[in-house]
């Protein structure tokens, strides 16, 4: 499949920028050094970190209040990790940090110095082959709108790696940190069982 040369985000951002340019008066700001490519203005309290995301090392300067979720999305442009509740309740932002599933919305990026982060973008083997969990979610229709899906899949991959039991009851319990408001739970459970068998 050929990839289109634009993204929804790029299109919307460009449109909003064009509209903003018409409306906004020129801003006067203090001269400041940028914190990095596409980064925000550097402030005195910024922390320099190295994040290893899906095997690639990234140098970032972040304010201490920046969450891992926002660093992934807004700084590294990895939009697969979703922001749902932003309070640790929905699981849409689930990623793995040093091999453990966590909610990136409650993780401060500045506290992840030197840690290995795995996101949904790193699961597939390039364009060649989906991760077995991704393939199983497709085969079993383990989603409807798809917004919670990256978090569901990252959590499901961790569940299998942790060696949790694969009964319906156990999967329900060990996936309880991932909410799906479309209610795709039966298909998500089927996908997890199938992927665990394939692995």
């Amino acid at each position, binding site marked *: 499949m050929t990839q289109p040369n634009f993204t929804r985000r790029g299109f919307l951002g460009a449109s909003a920028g064009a509209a903003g340019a018409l409306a906004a008066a020129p801003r006067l700001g203090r001269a400041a050094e940028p914190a990095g490519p596409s980064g925000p203005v550097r402030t005195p309290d910024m922390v320099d970190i190295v994040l290893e995301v899906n095997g690639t090392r990234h140098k970032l300067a972040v304010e201490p*209040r920046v969450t891992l979720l926002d660093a992934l999305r807004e700084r590294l442009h990895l939009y697969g990790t979703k922001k749902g509740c932003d309070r640790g309740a929905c*699981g849409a932002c689930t990623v793995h940090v040093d091999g453990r*599933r966590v*909610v990136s919305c409650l993780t401060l990026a500045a506290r992840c110095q030197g840690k290995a982060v795995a996101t949904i973008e790193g699961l597939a083997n390039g364009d060649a082959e989906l991760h077995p969990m991704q393939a199983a979610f497709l085969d079993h229709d383990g989603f409807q709108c798809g917004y919670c899906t990256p978090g569901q899949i990252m959590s499901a991959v*961790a569940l299998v790696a942790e060696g949790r039991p694969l009964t319906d009851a156990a999967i329900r319990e060990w996936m*309880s940190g991932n909410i799906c408001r479309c209610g795709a739970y039966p298909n998500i459970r089927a996908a997890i069982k199938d992927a665990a068998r394939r692995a």
Partner: protein
Amino acid sequence: MQPFTLAAPGDVAGATAAAASAADAKYIAGGTDLVQLMKDGVERPQHLVDLAGLPFDRIEFGADGARIGALVRMSDAADDAELRRRWPIIAEALLASASPQLRNMATMGGNLLQRTRCGYFRDTGFPCNKRAPGSGCPAIAGDNRGLAIFGGSAHCVATHPSDLAVALAALDAVVELSGPAPQGGAATRRVALGEFHLLPGDTPERETVLRPGEIITAILVPAETAGLHSHYLKVRDRASFEFALVSAAVVVGMTGGRIDRARVAMGGVGAKPWRLPAVEAALAGAPATPSAFAAAAAHAAEGAQPLSQNRFKIALMQRALMRALTIATA
């Protein structure tokens, strides 16, 4: 979130010095509760002191019992084979808490310091004596279904949300604290878990006996409560990932079919884990039978002061207690 600075010390002295260096500093461990509270403006620290570099991330076993480092993650404690073998009620309480992701982040010490789930405390649009002392308590005449029936005051009726703390209370656990010594350096002291949390009284903003700058370094679980019959039963509105309406932790020593000694604590009913001495007295020497459990549970609600919406907790806690005793002694 309002901006803040971040320090990452490597020992207790460094941590207490960093905390003392700025007004309005806060310690952060797992951060699962604190970051939420900061996003919602309930907490507004100018300075965070990261405890992740402190050496309190191990579980050790000795003749006295277990020493669980305060920075051990909830998930690691729940998966620890030796801890599960000797005090299975700890893993039961941990696995009934939060979600797998949050348990991978949250620490054992931080769990004891999580703040109440009272909706008025967590919404800065409302008064709250715990968040803004003297502003009032809308919960007493308001939405109080989930709140306390024991130990509340005219200023606060919040419950403590921890499951772990309830299990530890029933195990006679002890909390080890370390903080700045008057002469400099760090001083360590021990407090029984049952005395660690404070009742609201006139100062609901004070929730524990922690002194300024002091941190939890370990949880000590005594060998005397290892290997006993036990169970943690949690009753909640959803099957998982929900705080307790009522919970029961029972730890029972038995000879034959007869109870030697029972330790009973309940969650979801008070500002701290609620030990029930009258129930424990009624169980001592009693046979492990449904009628004996019912007779003991009849004492559970002595002294309860239910609010407009939470009278149901009286019957619920008695039934939860009987069921927990039945499962523990089976």
